[in-house]
């Protein structure tokens, strides 16, 4: 009888805020990529709640009151034969549900524990042009909210600035909702499969420490809740997209003075560990390798694939620094014998380039060129294609090319002092192999759990962590990750979670510490430790990250480029503007009252940041034409905005230039 190991998948699940009580489930297919069983749809659509895999349609985006639904993250457990040394991809794995038979034992329950927290207010400022480099050489960026104390580890400061409802446990066979609010007791599962309540756990919400908060869309009283399903899986739904502000000593509410770091503000995004204990009919139990849940911005374009996704960034780190695939990278070098899989490792880059047009105001000639890129197949000789010689791909190995715009692609903005974005080193290696004809035409065979890992992360933003939308530059830090993935049985892409002893919680004392600090080896990552590096509140950064000049901008160019074109739509085609199958002009995604500006560099966003805090649920969602329900039918080749509560004028095609401030 072979020994089994158990792992939760996805290793990192992504939930998204919404202002509705209702939710759908995070997509388990990859944005924009073909589906094996559907001709009329591509991947990336979230899943209708309560179903196995039924994609949502336009009718599912909002509830009956017009509120934007949340996206919940669904977690499952997979079993694998134990190996002394794991290789990636495993290719196997079978889901474990309540009722599953495993080596003669039947699973009778699955006890889940999740701990969400928000530490944004207690952490360090994001230094936009430095990213993780701000933490090098034992340096730390300035703290957010310095008037609350100069030390992020200070107990009083943590008590005031960390939103921490504590852990929550859920018995998979129960159909209960367990909330991350103040009134629900903290609870956690023991390795023996018991749920323990922890009444001593010190919970903290903004209103506990700060009276008279400004609450534009209501107070922050919860970070979300847990649900189960009929199979004992876990569903984590996050917050409601709220942001609240406390007052300065003079009684005035802190202004929203910046895009990324706003003292005096909280939001209700969060993150934290997900663990599970399997209970068998013979009274034994087994722990599964833990996962992580991230609760972040809404997904306004779920089927638009990022050219550099979070998956690409994370894989790049794992391949180069954590030994994920020695056949790809070993001894400090890429292996020229490696043959990347066209469908999995190459074509998604081409496809992503083509999809950007639905969220940006690309001119016609560029759209057609991108279409030609996406039409490249595995049977085409690379030298005969539009990407022959990689003539138009920015080479990340050549530092100077980060400063070079057209014709090098992607023509979107970079991060950490790099004006333009480039593929990751690993992506570029795959492209080089393709260009030299050294590739295989098919796809990599992933196990079903591995496929969930990949889909979850490939649907998120990578490349431009300034700070980003889902996770940020910390994913490039090996200290974030569990390094013994191959021998431990836990598999790759697991966050190095700190072991938390909830039994040691004391009344009145904040349980969570300052937590993970980038580039430092430490006891591990705590709840709230990945989302804390994101913008505070997220709304202001999302609002501003439409188009910008490059940063740095040594030639003082006024030309505007896209920040996060796949995930922060700038210019969209509205479904209602399509007539006889022909697209109408483009409109800004963020539009309407309060967004107008004569300067193109300020258009497509609210001029007053507070307006975004109030109006974000009104932004529409870009989805495939065939996912739009109603009397009219739309093409599967069009990705159109639906369900917007905003309206305004058309957008001219790129290029656009900022106004000269001297004029």
């Amino acid at each position, binding site marked *: 009888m072979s020994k089994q190991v158990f792992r939760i998948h996805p290793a990192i699940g992504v939930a998204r805020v919404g202002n509705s009580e209702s939710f759908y489930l995070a997509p388990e297919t990859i944005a924009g990529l073909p589906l094996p069983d559907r001709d009329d749809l591509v991947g990336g659509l979230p899943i209708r709640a309560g179903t196995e895999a039924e994609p949502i349609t336009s009718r599912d985006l909002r509830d009956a009151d017009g509120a934007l639904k949340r996206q919940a993250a669904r977690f499952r457990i997979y079993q694998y034969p134990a190996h002394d040394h794991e290789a990636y991809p495993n290719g196997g794995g079978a889901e474990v549900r309540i009722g599953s038979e495993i080596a003669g034992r039947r699973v009778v329950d699955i006890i889940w524990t999740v701990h969400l927290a928000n530490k944004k207010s207690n952490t360090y400022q994001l230094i936009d042009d430095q990213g993780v480099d701000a933490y090098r050489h034992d340096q730390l960026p300035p703290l957010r909210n310095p008037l609350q104390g100069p030390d992020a580890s200070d107990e009083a400061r943590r008590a005031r600035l960390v939103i921490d409802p504590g852990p929550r446990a859920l018995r998979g066979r129960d159909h209960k909702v367990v909330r991350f609010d103040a009134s629900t007791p903290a609870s956690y599962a023991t390795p023996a499969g018991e749920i323990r309540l922890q009444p001593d756990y010190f919970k903290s919400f903004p209103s506990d420490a700060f009276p008279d908060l400004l609450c534009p869309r209501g107070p922050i009283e919860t970070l979300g809740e847990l649900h189960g399903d009929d199979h004992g899986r876990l569903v984590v739904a996050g917050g409601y997209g709220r942001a609240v502000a406390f007052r300065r000593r003079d009684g005035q509410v802190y202004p929203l003075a910046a895009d990324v770091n706003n003292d005096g503000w909280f939001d209700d995004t969060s993150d934290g560990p997900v663990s599970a204990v399997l209970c068998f009919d013979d009274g034994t139990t087994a722990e599964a390798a833990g996962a992580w849940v991230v609760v972040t911005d809404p997904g306004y374009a779920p089927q638009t694939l990022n050219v550099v996704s979070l998956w690409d960034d994370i894989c790049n780190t794992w391949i180069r620094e954590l030994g994920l695939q020695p056949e790809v990278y070993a001894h400090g070098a890429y292996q020229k014998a490696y043959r990347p899989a066209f469908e999995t490792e190459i074509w998604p880059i081409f496809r992503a380039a083509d999809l950007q047009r639905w969220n940006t105001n690309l001119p016609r000639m560029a759209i057609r060129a991108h279409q030609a890129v996406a039409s490249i197949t595995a049977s085409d000789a690379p*030298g005969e294609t*539009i990407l*022959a010689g990689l*003539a138009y791909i920015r080479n990340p190995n050549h530092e100077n*090319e980060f400063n*070079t715009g057209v*014709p090098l692609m992607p023509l979107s903005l970079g991060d950490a002092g790099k004006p333009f974005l480039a593929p990751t080193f690993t992506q570029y290696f795959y492209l080089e192999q393709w260009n030299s004809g050294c590739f295989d035409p098919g796809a990599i065979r992933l196990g079903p759990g591995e496929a969930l890992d990949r889909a979850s992360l490939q649907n998120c933003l990578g490349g431009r962590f300034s700070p980003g939308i889902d996770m940020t530059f910390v994913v490039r830090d090996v200290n974030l990750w569990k390094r013994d993935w191959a021998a431990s049985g836990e598999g790759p892409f697991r966050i190095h979670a700190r072991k938390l002893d909830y039994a040691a919680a004391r009344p009145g004392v904040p349980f969570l510490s300052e937590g993970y600090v980038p580039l430092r080896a430490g006891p591990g990552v705590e709840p709230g430790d990945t989302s804390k590096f994101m913008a505070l509140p997220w709304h202001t950064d999302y609002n501003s990250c439409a188009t910008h000049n490059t940063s740095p901008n040594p030639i003082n*160019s006024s030309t505007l480029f896209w920040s996060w074109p796949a995930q922060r739509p700038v210019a969209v085609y509205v479904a209602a503007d399509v007539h006889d199958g022909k697209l109408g002009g483009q409109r800004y995604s963020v539009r309407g009252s309060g967004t107008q500006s004569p300067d193109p560099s300020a258009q497509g966003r609210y001029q007053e940041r507070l307006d975004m805090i109030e109006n974000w649920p009104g932004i529409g969602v870009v989805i495939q034409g065939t996912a739009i329900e109603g009397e009219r039918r739309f093409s599967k080749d069009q990705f159109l905005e639906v369900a917007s509560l905003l309206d305004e004028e058309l957008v001219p095609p790129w*290029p656009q230039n900022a106004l000269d401030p001297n004029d």
Partner: protein
Amino acid sequence: MNHSVPTWTLEDVQKHLQYAVDLELWTIPFYMAAMYSIEDRSHPSFQLIQTVVYQEMLHLQLAANVANAYGTELAIRPPAYIGDKIPHLNFRIDHPDPRLEFHPSSAEIGPLDLARVNSMCLIEYPKWAGHHRPELRPNITEYGSIGEFYRAVQLGMTERAADLRGRRQQVDEFGRFYANMDRLTVDLDGEAGLAQALRLIQAITNQGEGEMRGERDIPTMFQNTADDAHAQHAHFGKFRRVREAVLGAHPPRTYSGVAHPPPGSPGARAQEILVRDFGALCTLLQALFYGRDPAEFGPRMTKVGAAIFSCWQNGAIPRFS
């Protein structure tokens, strides 16, 4: 010299505008081949040539728009690159002879080297201020500079203004890159249209040779507002900077290649692809300037660049026909 100035016929104007299209088209592969021979795509010389290439594409469009406004039946054919022959220009008759400064030169496709960059400078060489009135000569190759050539074209255009018709097969692929120009097409007829057409020719000459031998910024109206870090500089000035780099202590590293790689070799295959793609592009250009909207134009134009780059990477000098 004491030539008489003939009266231009419409056919003369059309013939000269075809020459203009020929000349602008000729420059694009020549410049692109030199540009893609530079190994470092972020090198200032690469970037400078690239901005010129983009404007030559604009110039081709502008010349074609003016030609169509005069009812020219344009023919787009792959150019030839032989010896030091640049279509419709003969620097020998310019005064002083610019070849004394820009020597040696070659009009054959090749990597960025002194011969190539000298030819690039010669093509964009400015006319002398106060030069004699340009004349229509029986043999057009006797035009001493591109500036003189375009002055002759403008003279003919003016004489035949009555033959001008706006909105005839006008193309605008670049309008948003020149936000300070109100239009890149000819929309009006006769004298009114002539002002528009002359403005397009001025855009070509100002961006190309510039004024005062390229030493003064080109007018704001004609500057690229989108993607040119040196938008105020004319081609001649840009190419002089490239030439300085070529002659400097650290010239840009370039790929090397052979004109005739062994049959069946990757280089030969890359050349075949380029010949095919460029031929297809010429066909698409012809369609574009005949009022059609070939969807393949943008991708094919992009593909030609990739094919040139691929030739160099495979040790072959790019070949276009």
